[in-house]
């Protein structure tokens, strides 16, 4: 015999459900397909209709068929929009449809739980401070639904306030847990979003990098953690952020070698790691490894690609990152969200002092029968400079001596790309010069390869980190010498040394490059020192957020715990946790009203009693359970002759007391009565203090 008294959904709850629905679904707008949005909107409007009593709940058959239809359609398009996107859409639809056919309290609870999950999904790609605040508010609203179920007969505003209160009380423990909870690596492969990729691509033709120079988007930020505590990194000219190494050239496009591609594909199942360089590889100087290494944290913006950024020989202990044999880093998952990782680089160590014949072969291969003029030039260099090192230096100088120009908008190029550039146009940017140098080197028998990445970084003095923007994208060359390994050569530095020494902004007018299509970019503020200061301040906040919240990993956790506890061991952690939880418990218990002692009487009654007690001491009749008015009369009878001066005042006092206690009063009347009551109380109290006992 079950009836639904407890499971009836109250009006307050229905109201909160309306708000929650919009709050939870609206941040997911970007991911929703048009018809998901449409179905969600219809469900919301229908629910509004139910709320205002205009329509009935939809028949179950309709909801079921809608759900099946939506799921089927999603399954069909999932390959187009990506698996994760399809799953998100499925969840959104489920949420909307459950929402509309909600009948019992159980359904409300389901909707609330799914609501939290959707909030978590939203957090995947909205991670800025402002988004976090917004989504925390959404979580509070979602909790209000539950509060309204168990706290009815109240206004919705009271529900929201209470929900806030619970969240606020829960925050301290959440922070403690956030610090001590273990951070694990990814446990299994999860589907990723299919979004437009940004940043560098694993294929490079001449136009690509010039497109990036039009972008003012942040690519990544780097915070150096030097052993002496300073935060400054190497000079701008040494900030070559290697991202991709390209070894295959077909005359048009540079590509990564298939063997590297294969390693990338296998990365999750066979994560490749490189051995750390030993002191031999660090060159002639027998110096300590520690001194020659750079420690830094890279906070990458979502690029939806998997290649990472690092200086020189980059190593990372992060177990979601693989170290490729070309000394670049590669993530196991696409960078769908802002992600931070630690890198250790060894700028002085040699890359591949010996080269396998296969690798040598790869880095000497050129498309056949192409660019004959360049071939000829290369032969000249070979004859003139038999020493490989001297030859490359001569090639570099060739760019400086001849009339070559550095421009971001080079003229169109024909089929024989290198020939056209070297002998016809004589104008281009990094990709052109780097390609030409690799081509010349390979043609003259020296192994060489193309490296793409970013060059430079804008230092933020407030927080001490470097920002690297997309317009800092760059391409350069690595040439291999016997016993020395791969050496970096940047022909662009020969044409536009400013570009390398002082950064992109020193060479190019920002208005004509990355700010061209961006009228509202914050980077425009660079011209005004104090506005730039504010920009830096805001950027620092975002940086700290990224480092300490988004990038809070096992290492940071250990560092924080060490600072707080001195020594990090399970015993210390347990004691600290115990203390924290106790303090938090007491704090919550206090605010929950657990320590509230119920005063036996209200203030007025206490004051009335106090006066009566005083009067009794002065010889007034015994109170003996008499109600106030009766007692006043009894007093009149006793004191009518002996002390009549007290009677009018006490009668008035009694009247005010009775009015305050038992009469329905408006707030205004109440305060008037209270004022008079209190005045009388003090006059009586003082008067009784002075007077003698009377009979």
């Amino acid at each position, binding site marked *: *015999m*079950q*009836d639904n*008294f*407890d499971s009836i959904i109250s009006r307050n709850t229905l109201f909160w459900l309306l708000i929650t629905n919009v709050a939870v679904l609206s941040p997911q707008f970007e991911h929703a397909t048009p018809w998901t949005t449409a179905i969600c909107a219809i469900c919301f409007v229908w629910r509004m209709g139910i709320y205002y009593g205009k329509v009935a709940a939809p028949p179950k058959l309709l909801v079921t068929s809608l759900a099946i239809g939506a799921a089927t359609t999603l399954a069909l398009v999932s390959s187009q929009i990506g698996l994760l996107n399809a799953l998100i859409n499925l969840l959104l639809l489920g949420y909307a449809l459950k929402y509309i056919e909600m009948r019992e309290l159980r359904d409300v*609870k389901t909707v609330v*739980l799914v609501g*939290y*999950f959707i*909030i*978590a999904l939203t*957090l*995947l790609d909205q*991670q800025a401070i402002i988004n*976090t605040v917004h989504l925390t508010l959404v*979580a509070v609203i979602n*909790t209000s639904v*539950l*509060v309204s*179920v*168990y*706290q009815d*007969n*109240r206004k919705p505003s*009271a529900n929201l*306030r*209470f929900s806030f*209160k*619970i*969240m606020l*009380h*829960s925050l*301290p*423990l*959440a922070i403690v*847990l*956030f610090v001590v*909870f273990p*951070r*694990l*690596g*990814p*446990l*299994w492969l*999860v589907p990723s979003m299919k979004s437009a990729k940004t940043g560098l691509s694993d294929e490079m033709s001449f136009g690509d990098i010039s497109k990036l120079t039009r972008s003012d988007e942040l690519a990544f930020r780097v915070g150096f953690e030097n052993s002496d505590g300073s935060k400054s990194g190497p000079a701008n000219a040494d900030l070559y952020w290697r991202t991709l190494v390209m070894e295959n050239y077909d005359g048009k496009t540079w590509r990564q070698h298939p063997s590297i591609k294969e390693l990338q594909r296998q990365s999750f199942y066979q994560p490749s790691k490189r051995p750390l360089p030993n002191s031999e590889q660090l060159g002639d100087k027998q110096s300590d490894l520690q001194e020659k290494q750079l420690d830094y944290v890279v906070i990458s913006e979502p690029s939806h690609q998997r290649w990472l950024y690092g200086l020189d020989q980059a190593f990372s202990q992060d177990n*979601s990152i693989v170290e490729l044999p070309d000394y670049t880093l590669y993530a196991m998952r696409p960078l769908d*969200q802002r992600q931070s990782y630690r890198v250790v680089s060894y700028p002085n160590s040699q890359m591949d002092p010996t080269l396998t014949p296969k690798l040598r072969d790869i880095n000497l291969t050129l498309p056949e029968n192409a660019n004959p003029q360049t071939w000829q030039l290369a032969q000249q260099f070979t004859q003139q400079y038999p020493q490989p090192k001297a030859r490359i230096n001569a090639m570099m100088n060739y760019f400086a001596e001849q009339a070559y120009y550095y421009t971001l908008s080079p003229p169109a190029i024909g089929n024989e790309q290198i020939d056209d550039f070297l002998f016809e146009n004589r104008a281009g940017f990094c990709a052109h010069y780097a390609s030409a140098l690799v081509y010349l080197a390979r043609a003259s028998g020296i192994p060489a390869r193309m490296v793409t990445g970013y060059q430079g970084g804008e230092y933020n003095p407030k927080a001490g980190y470097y920002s690297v923007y997309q317009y800092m994208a760059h391409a350069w060359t690595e040439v291999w010498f016997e016993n020395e390994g791969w050496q970096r050569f940047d022909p662009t530095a020969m044409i536009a040394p400013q570009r390398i020494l002082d950064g992109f902004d020193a060479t190019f007018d920002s208005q004509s490059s990355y700010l061209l299509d961006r009228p509202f970019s914050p980077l425009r503020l660079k011209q005004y020192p104090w506005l730039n200061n504010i920009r830096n301040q805001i950027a620092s906040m975002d940086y700290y957020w990224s480092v300490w*919240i*988004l*990038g809070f990993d096992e290492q940071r956790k250990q560092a924080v715990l060490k600072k707080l506890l001195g020594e990090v061991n399970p015993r210390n952690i347990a004691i600290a946790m115990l203390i924290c939880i106790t303090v938090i*418990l007491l704090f*919550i*218990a206090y605010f*929950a*009203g*657990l320590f*509230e002692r*119920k005063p036996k009487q209200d203030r007025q009654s206490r004051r009335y009693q106090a006066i009566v007690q005083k009067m009794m001491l002065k010889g007034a009749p015994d109170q003996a359970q008499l109600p106030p008015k*009766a007692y006043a*009369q009894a007093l009149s009878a006793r004191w009518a002759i002996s002390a009549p001066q007290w009677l009018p005042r006490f009668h008035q006092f009694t009247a005010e007391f009775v009015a305050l206690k038992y009469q329905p009063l408006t707030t205004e009347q109440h305060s008037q009565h209270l004022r008079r009551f209190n005045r009388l109380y003090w006059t009586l109290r003082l008067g009784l203090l002075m007077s003698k006992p009377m009979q």
Partner: protein
Amino acid sequence: MFSRKAKVKQTNQTSWLTKLIPKAAEQKWSRWIGRRLPPQEKVTLSHKGIFILPSAFGIAWLALIILLYLFGTNYQNNLVIGLSLLLASVFHTCIIYSYKNLAGLTFSAVSPADAYAEQPHTFPIMLTGHANPKRPDTTHQQICMQFNGQRHIRLQHTEEQTIATVQYDNPKRGLLTPGRIKVWSHFPLGLFKAWSYVDLDLHQVVFAAPLECDIRLTSQADEDNNDISHGKIRPGVDDYTGLRSYVTGESLKQVAWKQWAQNKGMLTKEFNEPEGAPVWLSLADTQGHDLEQRLSKLSWQVNTLARKNQIFGLIIDNHTLSQSSGESHRIACQKALALYRPSFDLQSDHHLGGKNAG
């Protein structure tokens, strides 16, 4: 000052789960509870008697926390992990809130109305808790109360003093000891069920269910005369019965001056005067196809006569309640009927009744 905001709800609390618990364990539990929370006139809930366990929703909540943690770990997203830890922390906060919602609540019994067999009965229970008008969140909310196996009621919210009427359906004639009241609440988010048992040592005599019938009186003075005017009371001067407000024109002799002096207003003392000869109700003379029906008929007659202010006495077997009138007499008669247990003698009585009917 009291608020009656109790909503009544009917459920069958004995779910399949409770059926699985063996009888012996249940008895052991019951004994343990009885020792821990002994019957008292006034019970204040404290840590000694409040039990808190996650509800089914609470377990679903925990599952969500784990799911979000795994989700956040797999996507290496600290914010998702943060959300899962925040929800875990909310879970922890709710323990304190659910405890607080019951702690300090004082229960005491209020004298209940008459209970009649087979009719739903309610036990009014006074709940005293702290209600700070400045902090409305600290009041006790959503308190559910229930006798074992009975319907439960839910108090949306309580004030300083609230009277809850706890249901007891289908009581049997005789002494009713409803036992412990189970008190619980799911406040604040439904993640936990906090509950306790309140034993106020309640007991009540359940009167026989009144059954409308002809009034069958036995007057010792005149056995043939069954006139209803026998034993009737009319307003008189002999027996003082109570006070009522003064109506202009009444004799000043009957004004209660003492009360007037106490400023209670002008009241008139009321006196009654018995009219006619007293009458008797007797079990033996009441007809019916079984004992319960006869008792029911008597119960109805007692109430009817009492309402008419008639003087009557009650004879059950050898037991006689002397003739009287008024509320206390009615209660005495009803109690006698309620607690009546047929002895061997009664069997013959029953036969007698049967013969009379035939």
